[in-house]
């Protein structure tokens, strides 16, 4: 629905050389050929503008529908069903069809937000600052709460002071890294996700 900013002069010019009446005089039907406009002549689906088309899996439910993600200049322009998948064969449900809407959602965060203790507002912070701060806090809390052995002598090597929730919506590689770092590395036992929710 783009705004129309043509000057009056080229409006008249365009009107005249596309004028339907002469075409009608030459026998064109007013329902079809005589009425067809320049835009209709040159219309193409915008998928043809894509410079990168990849196969993705719908991020919503566990059915696992395959999707084709069309992108142009590094931005997703459309997502629709992948006809090659034996699961959805090109179809999608209302959520799957809204994947492009999710990727370009107006509420999408693009900056790290930080809320200082007792503060009443978010502040934008650089990503690296946040990563350093989180690493520091993680180490500090781990060191304060790490238990090597119970009073009875059994070795446990764990910390009850740190917890992680998530995620049934995450990739296998991500869940593997979370359990490996938080469990195998830091000794966290409070590691859970939506599987029980």
């Amino acid at each position, binding site marked *: 629905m783009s705004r*129309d900013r043509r000057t009056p002069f080229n*409006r008249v010019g365009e*009107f005249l050389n596309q*004028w*339907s*009446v002469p075409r*009608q005089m030459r026998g064109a039907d*007013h329902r079809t050929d*005589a*009425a067809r406009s320049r835009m209709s002549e040159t219309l193409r689906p915008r998928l043809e503008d894509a410079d990168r088309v990849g196969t993705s899996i719908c991020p919503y439910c566990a059915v696992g529908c395959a999707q084709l993600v069309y992108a142009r200049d590094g931005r997703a322009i459309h997502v629709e069903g992948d006809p090659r998948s034996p699961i959805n064969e090109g179809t999608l449900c209302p959520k799957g069809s809204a994947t492009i809407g999710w990727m370009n959602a107006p509420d999408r965060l693009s900056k790290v937000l930080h809320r200082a203790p007792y503060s009443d507002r978010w502040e934008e912070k650089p990503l690296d600052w946040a990563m350093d701060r989180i690493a520091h806090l993680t180490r500090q809390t781990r060191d304060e709460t790490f238990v090597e052995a119970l009073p009875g002598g059994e070795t446990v090597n764990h910390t009850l002071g740190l917890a992680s929730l998530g995620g049934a919506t995450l990739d296998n590689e991500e869940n593997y890294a979370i359990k490996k770092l938080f469990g195998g590395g830091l000794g966290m036992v409070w590691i859970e996700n939506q599987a029980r929710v």
Partner: protein
Amino acid sequence: MNWKRTRRIGKTEIPRWDGETYYDVPPVKPVPWDWKVATYVFLGGVGGAAQVLGLLADWRRPSPRPAPPPVTRRARWLGVGGVTLGAPLIIADLKTPRRFYNMLRIIRPTSGMSIGSWLLAAFGASSGLALLAQLTGFRRTARAAHLPAALAGAGMATYTGALFGATSTPRWAAASNLLAARFGLSSMAAGAAALSLGERHGPTWQALDTVSLVALSADTALSFGVQNERRAEGTDAADRFTRDAELAAKVLHVLPVVLYAANGLSRRPSPTLSTVASTLAIAASWLTRVNEMRGARASARRPEDTFRLAQPPGSGGRRQ
């Protein structure tokens, strides 16, 4: 599926409609116009009728005719006036006004508005030419241009009624023919009344009043006809406001008829009486168009109206 009584459409038997609607959501959409289009229809009608009357007044005189009678000259002014006041109104009503010229992009015989656009163009051009010629003294050109203006004028006076009728708005679709007739008569009445206001004495003045009287009474008669057709299709429901407005319009029709008649019968017809009657006649014509617009939008919002109109013949659905 306990099949209630059924009705046949084409080769198919389907359950009869039992008055139910889909959560009262209207199945058709109301026409997106308001007083601006109604007023254009009125002005176009007056201008068009005036040109015709002006032509008739000038046409019967033996040639080489001297200067056209004042009524013809005023008619030509009225014609141009109708266009210059009316056209901006409908262009303003367009939701993308800057593309108004696309109205003349194509000739689409199935579209009331396409026919109307070309009529308006022709009427505007010919009326304009006639007036210009009149003002610049080219009497024969003026008279030559007046003929197409009058012909287009006849169109201007009636096409809008047909345009309304050729929609799916239940109230309009139910009585499309008579609606167009009413608009034609209403235009003639208003046109004659407008010209009569310009004539204070003389036979033309009386003739115009009589024409207005005839047109008004015929229009009033037809309004009852329209009402019956709508009742027959079951699309005559109306809210209180619409009923009162239609009553007012009827009063505005009958009153001038009585006044004209009284004036016509008396030996010394009084100009003031005629002025009052003519003004009322013009108001009646305008109010008829506004009421039709309001009534149509309201009827489109009543699902029952559309469903009744769209019942197959003989299924009894219409009469509910």
